[in-house]
């Protein structure tokens, strides 16, 4: 019951939105398409020493130095391989450009507010703070990631917490 009311509240707040759906292993995730700048292959990444293992390094995106984060490592997926299919989604968050490595990009989905369910409390690896909900589409479930919150969070170590910017 309470879920229904929550859903109704969210419906009042949001119109239907478009999401980019990508896969990590067997799971399907989605992020707000307005955050996505471009999609490119995984190549030419320069390793950064002493960085967390999910930060693969930095790459040159038309003259801009962009850090590359592998969400598969961050989410503790078992198989992490880099091949021709490995895709980097370049996103714009908090005035920064960041690339995230995923197993594949499937499609762009429009979700109506009714299709977005609140995320349950779970997960040590992925705190529900970083989720904007769960999308249900027929029999598929999409994990809607709040990419802003996730990438600027302390545990991602992407942003200088001490910086004066």
């Amino acid at each position, binding site marked *: 019951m309470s879920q229904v009311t929550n859903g109704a509240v969210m419906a009042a707040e949001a119109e239907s939105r478009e999401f980019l759906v990508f896969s990590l292993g067997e799971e399907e995730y989605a992020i707000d398409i307005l955050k996505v700048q471009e999609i490119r292959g995984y190549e030419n990444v320069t390793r950064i020493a*002493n*960085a967390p293992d999910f930060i693969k390094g930095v790459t040159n995106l038309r*003259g801009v130095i962009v850090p590359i984060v592998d969400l598969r490592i961050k989410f503790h997926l078992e198989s992490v391989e880099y091949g021709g299919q490995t895709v980097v989604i370049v996103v714009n968050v908090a005035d920064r450009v960041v690339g995230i490595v995923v197993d594949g990009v499937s499609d762009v989905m429009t979700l109506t507010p009714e299709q977005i369910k609140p995320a349950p409390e779970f997960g040590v690896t992925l705190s529900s703070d970083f989720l904007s909900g769960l999308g249900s589409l027929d029999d598929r479930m999409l994990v809607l990631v709040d990419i802003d919150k996730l990438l600027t969070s302390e545990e991602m*170590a992407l942003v200088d917490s001490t910086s004066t910017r």
Partner: protein
Amino acid sequence: MDIADFFDTFFEEAEELLADMEQHLLELDVDNPDGEQLNAIFRAAHSIKGGAGTFGFSVLQKTTHILENLLDHARKGELVLRADLVDTFLEAKDIMHEQLDAYRNEEAPDQEAYERICHTLQQIALDEIGQTLEAPVAAPEPVAKPEELPSNEADHSQLIVALLNVSEKDRVLLVEELEQLGDVQAQSGDEKRYEVILNGDVSADDIEAVMCFIIEPEQIEITSAGDGHSAAASDVEQNSAKNAPVPTPSAPEPVKNPPVDAKQAAASSAKPKKAAAESSSIRVSVDKVDQIINLVGELIITQSMLDQTVSDLDDQSVSNSSLQNGMSLLQRNARDLQEAVMSIRMIPMEFVFSRFPRVVRDTAGKLGKEIELVTEGKSTELDKSLVERITDPLTHLVRNSLDHGIEMPDKREALGKPRTGKLILSARHQGGNILIEVRDDGAGMDRERLLAKARENGLNVSDAMTDEEVYQLIFAPGFSTAEAVTDVSGRGVGMDVVKRNIQGMGGRVEIQSKKGEGTNTRIVLPLTLAILDGMSIKVGGETFILPLSTVLESLQPTKNDMYAMAGDDVVLKVRDEYLPVIAIHEVLDVENAITDPTQSIAVIVQGEGRRYAMLVDELIGQQQVVVKNLEDNYRKVPGISAATILGDGSVALILDITGLHRLSRVKKEAGKVVNNQPISFYKEAEPS
């Protein structure tokens, strides 16, 4: 380079500042003014005044000065704003703009408008806050005979300055100020009336300008010795004479326009030359230039990729040879384009430094000091955006040094120093930064005085503060230890702006000072977009860049030269010197690197005055690289100062020598740092 080269820069800057000022004035909510906005308007006026003073545009300088005074009162809340006051300020801004145009066209600014606006502004000061600011201008009794002007000041070679109802404490300060203006012949009197006889080439106006910030103008009476008539009357008379046509270097001839309608006069004189004044340069936003630089970089990379493909073709047929010709042409054009684009941004520090001889000369002349200016590192190249933004803060710092730092020649002699003070401006690359220093051999800073002043201003200070912290106090808004506000400095706005500007560039200001020996103000700017001469090295399969300026030599270490020290430390003996060894593959966890030191190459580097031996696999060569900031999209990385993009489009990291050394120490202390504890590690490694 000639000072005239900077006129255009000043005109453009002043125009922007005026536009800013107008916008802020228009947005200002008179009933509930925003303090920050008032500050912004005030700062714009202050900056224009400073620039106008530097270039000798005295009419503009004086107009701005009066306006600035009013704005100062407004931002302190002593002047209650009304819509009609804002209108007057806007009008003043328009007149300043006309004056600016006049100077740009090398004409004399409109005297009529100048006097009218000065009069109006002073009237406001008088009506609203009950004080005269500089001196009342007599009603547009315009265009006095020019020959009267310069000599007028000299006529009053002896003045009697009477201070009425001035406390002893203030009096001492005032007399000190007077001593700076001229020779104090005699002084006597009591609190009610204290007379100082002053010899020198000073006008009553100057004296008032100096004093009116300490005491009210009514408390000063200035009489020229030998003519006995009433103080107040002579006051006005002198001022009206002084405020009449002011001779300027660029406009020595008197204004010809008869006193018609001021506005009309301004319009008619400004119009015909407008077209000629169109500037031959355009201002482009730095973002656009950056974008072009990035795109050209991509173009070069695409071109070398194509080049590779074409050279792989074995078929030497005719169609291929024309393709190859086309490719080599493309290559040349692309390189030329890149060079041309890069040159837009990079200019040597000389561009900044060359405006200082004039600044120093003028300021020193005004203050009666003897100063020798030395510049070092003029060829240090700096990004244009940084050059533009460093000029103003640097001017403030130089003036500050001249005004507060270097003592009067007589005092210097008494202290056993040479009469001529020395001011050194230097620029150089250091670590991942550009270091610009303003050094003087003056009085240095007085810790106690700064602390006392800070307490007076209600700042939170304690005696336990370090010297560096105490010196930083001068950057607090509104902080000034100068007892009087002069044309040169002392209003406390400068230093606050200096710090703001430098922080805005991602830099910092440090002050080193020794009482009696001088002050060294160091501006440390990040290298963003500066070009770096680098030495590329290889470790394992990875390429890194060492700043060439840090590299002293390289050699192949032998077993006999390596000594183990307590723990894991290793030192390398190079010509009787033991240097700490930093193995890059250990510090940066590079795999597949050469681990046997005798098989690797030791590069001797110097950072912050210390030398280290860095073990690398291979030296690749020297090249110029464009420095890219890592912090834009990522964060500070210990041991890495920045990144760059290599010819093949990949990213190479630029090493920070001292950072690497610190990192290797931290690593050794922590044992092998495990990758999944990065956050605590980062915190330890980050410099405060």
